[in-house]
Structure formats: C-alpha cells, structure tokens
C-alpha cells in the first residue's frame, strides 16, 4: 500500500516525476512552478533518477529540447507556469503537431500585464487550442494522480499526444495537504515501459521530422490530429479505471457533486471546486437543489457527456478563473457549446472570479447561488458575464 504524506502540490508532482523517472527533462525557473523542477533537480543530482536534466536558457528552449528528446525516442517531461507557457506557445503546437507525448505539469498562474505571480487559468486557457491534452486538478492528490495518469494517456498507442497537468498556482502548488502516494513499483508498473514510435535515434531507419506541408496535405494532417483527439476520452476513462483498481481513487472526464437531483448547478474547475462543494452542502441543508460539475479534462472537451450530465437543470452558473476579453469566459463558452445539443436549454450565467490569485471566498459562491436561484425561478438572465469578488 502507498504512503500517506503531508506535501504541497509541487512536491507531489515532483514525487510523481521521480517515480516515473523520465529519460530527459528540461527545466527553466518560473514562479510558482520553479519549486517543482527544483525538487526534481535534487533527485537528479542525488542519483535518485536516471534522468538527463537539460537546464535550458528559456522556456522556448525547454519545449524545443523536449521536442528533440521526445522525437529521439524516450520519456520526456518539463513544467512551467504563465509567462513560461506563453513563451513556449509556438513550440506547444509543434509538440502536438509532431505527435510527441511530452508531459508538462502546468502550475496555473496569471499572465502579464500587470505582472502577477498568483494563480488563475489564463495561461492554460491560452494554450487550449495547441493540440495538447489538458487535465485540471482540484488539489495536490489530483495533481499527483493526474501526472501519473497523464503519461499513460499521452503515450497510449492510439494517442501519442502531449499532455498538461494543471494545478492552481500557490493555492495547490504551495499548500500542504494530505496526499496518498502510490508505491514506486506500482507507479512503474502502471505507466509501463516507454515504447518509442519512429525514434530519431534509430540509425538504421533514418526519419525526417518536421516537413514542409502546404495546401495539398496540411488540411488532412490537421484532420488527423482532430481525429486523434476524439479518441482521447475513451483512453482517459480506461486509464482512470485501471488507476482506480490500483488506488481506489475514482477519476472520470469530469466530476459531479450532488448533481443528479439538482435543479441548478455551478460549473467550476480546479481548487475553487472544493470551496464550492462546501457552499453547496450549506444550500442543500437549506433545501436548495443545487449541484456541481467540475471538468477534469478540458482538452479534448467532453461536450456530449457534459451535456448529458447537465440536461435536467433549469439554470447553470459557470465560474471562470480566466477571461477571454471581448468574449465570455473560456469555460462558459464550452458549457454553452455543450448546451446547444440539449432539447430544453438551461439559463446560463458566467462569473469571472479569482484573477491573479484573488481569493475565492464562500460569500462569492453564495451570491452566485442566490442569483442562480432567481434565474431558475424567473428564467431571466440580466447580465450574462460579470466579474465577482471585485473591490469597487
């Protein structure tokens, strides 16, 4: 059986990487992810892993080195946050377009300007179209578990795509929580041996990676990438089932909480989901039929499955920890897309919360629920998108 420890999210992710023992890692410091690779560096220098650690001069080079290493044919990981991910942007598309199963814990942090080191989802949301699989984690346990599962999902022979494992900066990355570690041997056994596909290091069968493809085949190439994405949910569920067998911990494409008989619901990701569950319990005690849906897999987005889980609701509030300026919040847009497949559509409101690490306090959730009760009653939405928790 595994060990129960009190660790931060970063520590838990570093532990997962240690247990998985990637062949190559690249690292470049950025708050709040710094601490994760720092811990991993000590595993390297103390001989606890076999990893070749490439201490690059930028995140652009971190992802470039990961791409080279993954194409060479081995297990590869890195980690970053915010501006680091933004600097990688060009290479994120290339990692996915080249079908390289690179794993990257993303410690979610706000984007400049103004400069802010605290947690929100702007970085991850900005990378949603890159072709990476994205899993969001509520707490350190989920960050740890998702990291381990991500390797198995990304490296699956039907998938071969890079994956980001997201956790909230500071709130999860730097808070000490109870985490159940899995035994080293079990982790090793679970992720299995890395199987290379068309490795560059195969000298007998030389490969060319990264061709120029113009109007005649690019479109088909991209459709192939889309098709691979459609296979991801099945693999995520298979891996989750296997993981549950090993640990007893249950994962799916999303989590629901008191949703089955609910009339209204909140949709929110990551650490704020924990707080929201508490608020929901209070309203349930008062007889309000409210539930929660917490997406875990944001890319690919499970539209139909989520629509099915939300179809009985009268009203939904989507809480976004990121904004798409001039548009609705990115999570809201996805939920709204999911809702289009429903026969009777629930009323929907969108709240932008917690940017740059602004605390998400229970009162904020309570206000949203009070409004939602009213929306459900009247069927009328006054303002679709609104910032909450704002100092006026």
């Amino acid at each position, binding site marked *: 059986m595994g060990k129960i420890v009190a660790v931060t999210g970063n520590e838990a992710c570093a532990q997962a990487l240690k247990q998985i023992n990637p062949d190559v890692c690249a690292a470049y410091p950025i708050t709040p992810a710094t601490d994760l690779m720092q811990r991993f560096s000590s595993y390297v220098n103390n001989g606890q892993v*076999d990893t070749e650690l490439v201490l690059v*001069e*930028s995140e652009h080079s971190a992802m470039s080195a990961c791409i*080279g290493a993954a194409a060479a044919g*081995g297990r590869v990981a890195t980690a970053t946050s915010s501006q680091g991910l933004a600097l990688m942007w060009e*290479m994120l598309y290339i990692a996915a377009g080249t079908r390289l199963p690179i794993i990257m814990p993303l410690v979610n942090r706000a984007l400049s300007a103004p400069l802010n080191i605290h947690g929100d989802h702007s970085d991850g949301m900005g990378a949603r179209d890159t072709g990476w699989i994205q899993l969001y984690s509520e707490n350190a346990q989920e960050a740890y578990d998702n990291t381990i599962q991500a390797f198995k999902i990304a490296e699956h022979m039907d998938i071969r795509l890079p994956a980001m494992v997201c956790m909230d900066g500071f709130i999860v990355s730097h808070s000490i929580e109870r985490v159940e570690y899995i035994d080293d041997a079990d982790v090793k056994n679970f992720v299995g041996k890395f199987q290379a596909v068309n490795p560059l*290091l195969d000298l007998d069968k030389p490969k060319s990676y990264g*061709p*120029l493809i*113009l109007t005649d085949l690019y479109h088909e190439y991209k459709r192939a990438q889309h098709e691979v994405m459609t296979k991801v949910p099945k693999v995520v569920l298979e891996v989750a089932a296997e993981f549950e067998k090993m640990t007893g911990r249950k994962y799916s494409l999303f989590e629901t909480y008191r949703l089955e008989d609910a009339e209204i619901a909140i949709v929110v990701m990551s650490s704020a989901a924990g707080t929201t569950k508490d608020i929901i319990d209070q309203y349930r005690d008062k007889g309000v039929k409210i539930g929660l849906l917490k997406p875990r897999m944001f890319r690919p987005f499970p539209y139909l499955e989520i629509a099915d889980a939300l179809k009985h609701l009268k009203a939904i509030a989507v809480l976004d920890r990121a904004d798409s300026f001039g548009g609705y919040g990115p999570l809201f847009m996805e939920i709204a897309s999911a809702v289009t497949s429903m026969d009777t559509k629930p009323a929907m409101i969108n709240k932008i919360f917690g940017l740059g690490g602004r605390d998400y306090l229970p009162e904020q959730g309570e206000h949203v629920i009070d409004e939602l009760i009213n929306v459900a009653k009247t069927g009328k939405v006054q303002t679709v998108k609104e910032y909450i928790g704002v100092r006026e």
Partner: protein
Amino acid sequence: MTTKPLKLKELAKGEDRFAHGHRMCAGCGAPIVVKQVLMATDYPIIASNATGCLEVSSCIQQFTAWKIPWIHSAFENAAATISGVEAMYKSLVKQGKLEDKQVKFIAFGGDGGTYDIGFQSLSGAMERGHDMMYICYDNGAYMNTGIQRSSATPFGADTTTCPAGDVIPGKPQQRKDLTRIMAAHGIPYVAQASPAHWMDLMKKVQKAFEIKGPKFMNIISPCNRGWRSRTDDAIMLSRLAVDTCYWPLYEIENGVTKITYKPKEKKALIDFLKPQGRFKHMFAKENEWMLKQAQEQVDAQWERLLKEDSAVREEKPAEG
C-alpha cells in the same frame, strides 16, 4: 571509421547522405556546404535544421533529401532541439537502453536563424556543453523570406529591408562577428570555413568531430538570388571572400587561434563586391566612401586576426 582520408576519388565514391532531388535553387551554396560537411566523416550523424531555405527545400511532404535522421521544429531553436536529441541519446546510452554508436549531432541554421533569432538558443546550448556541432551556413540575409537584412548582412549591402535608397544607401551597420562571439563562449572548437576550400572545410569538420563538447562552425554560403550574382559563381565568390580576407579561414581550438589559410596576396575587397549586384550602388561616384569604409572594416578585422594567430605569436614571443 573515424578520420577518413580526404581523397577526391574516394570521396566521390561515397554515398550521399544529403541526396540530390532537393529543391534548393540552382547554384545555391547551402547544399554544397551540407554535402561537404556530411562527406567529411563516416560517423553516424543526426541533424536538426532551423527553418529557412535549406529546411523548406529539403523535406517537403513525403519527400526528404536527408538520408540521416533529421529534425526541423522551428526557426530559432535548431540548437535547443538537437540538444534535446543529444540529451536523450546520452540518457539512453547511460541507462544501457541504447548501444553507444558514437553518434554525432549537428544543428544546421542560416545566418538569420543563428546570428539573430536563434542566438539565445545557440548560446545556451553551447554553454551547457552538449556534445554537438552547430553549423551556420551564412548567406548574409534572410533569404527564404525574400532577402531581408540580418545581423550577418555585410555593410552597404542592398537587401529588401535595407534597400539602397537615396538617403540610406543599403545596410548602414557592420556585420556581427559571430565566430568571435562563439569563441568567447570558451567552447573547445570554433572555426570559419568556405566551400571553395573544401579540404580545409572537411578537415575542420573531422577535427571537430574528434573533440567532445560543443563546437561551432561558420561557413560562408553564397546565394545568387540575394547576392545578385551569376548562378554558377558560388565557389568563385566563396574563394574571393577568402582571398580578400572578407571571410578569413581560421579556427580557435581551446582558445588558440590559427589561421588555416593565408592568401599569398590579399586581394582588394572590391574583387569580392564587384560581381554582386547587392553592392552595385557602392560603386557609384557618390558612394565611394562606402567602398573605402568596407575595405577599412575588413582590414581592421584581418589585422586583428593576424595578431591573434598562434603562428605569428610564436614567432614574436611577448616582451618582458
């Protein structure tokens, strides 16, 4: 297996590791450079390539001219990309997952991808000490996007972004001396070469491959489109570049500078400039100062190099 004899007859019999059928322009210097580099050695080679003419013309859809493992990922990161490949090789060999076949790693980049946008990635990879060689084929501009100036573009040259205008007659700045900057990294081997002096070029490649750690070679690579010269003059121009001391052939091995070829008679820079349309405006009466200034720049750099040449320094031991 290691250092093979450089006999033309033997070399001609060898298998091309960069095959014909690529789509580089007729008379381009870059494929000649690549062939000479790959031909110099029998070591297995894995290469990365920065976005640019060489890359877009050598691997298109299902066709590739590369008979060695090759990777292109983006423009500014050929060094970082190959550093990742090298790191994986090292890791797998160390873990006993792969047999050590003495693989050599090369990054190829144009001057834009090397002097400018890829400079940080190059500098970082060199500092980290990867066992790799970076080869810049320097054609003195961003040729693939249509002849825009780079920091390698020579003083006065007419390019599409620094055109020879009435007020500003071509590129106002001197070119960046990247070879020297790379030497300042304190890496074990840095060299400058020219495809006209193929034996010198290949010897340098051979020498570099016997040295562990990061190596850098800067190789002049004429582009008849950008230089506005004749299709068949790539070798002639790369020889003139050397004979005018515009492009001196030298190496810096563990900090020791050695000029590997000294022209018997240093030719005037205009011999190199004249056949190239990009310098045509400099020959107009009102721009004669430019020719003078260009010559002065070359002279100053050559004088400095001569002073640093180990052979010269040995002849005249330091005083005191």
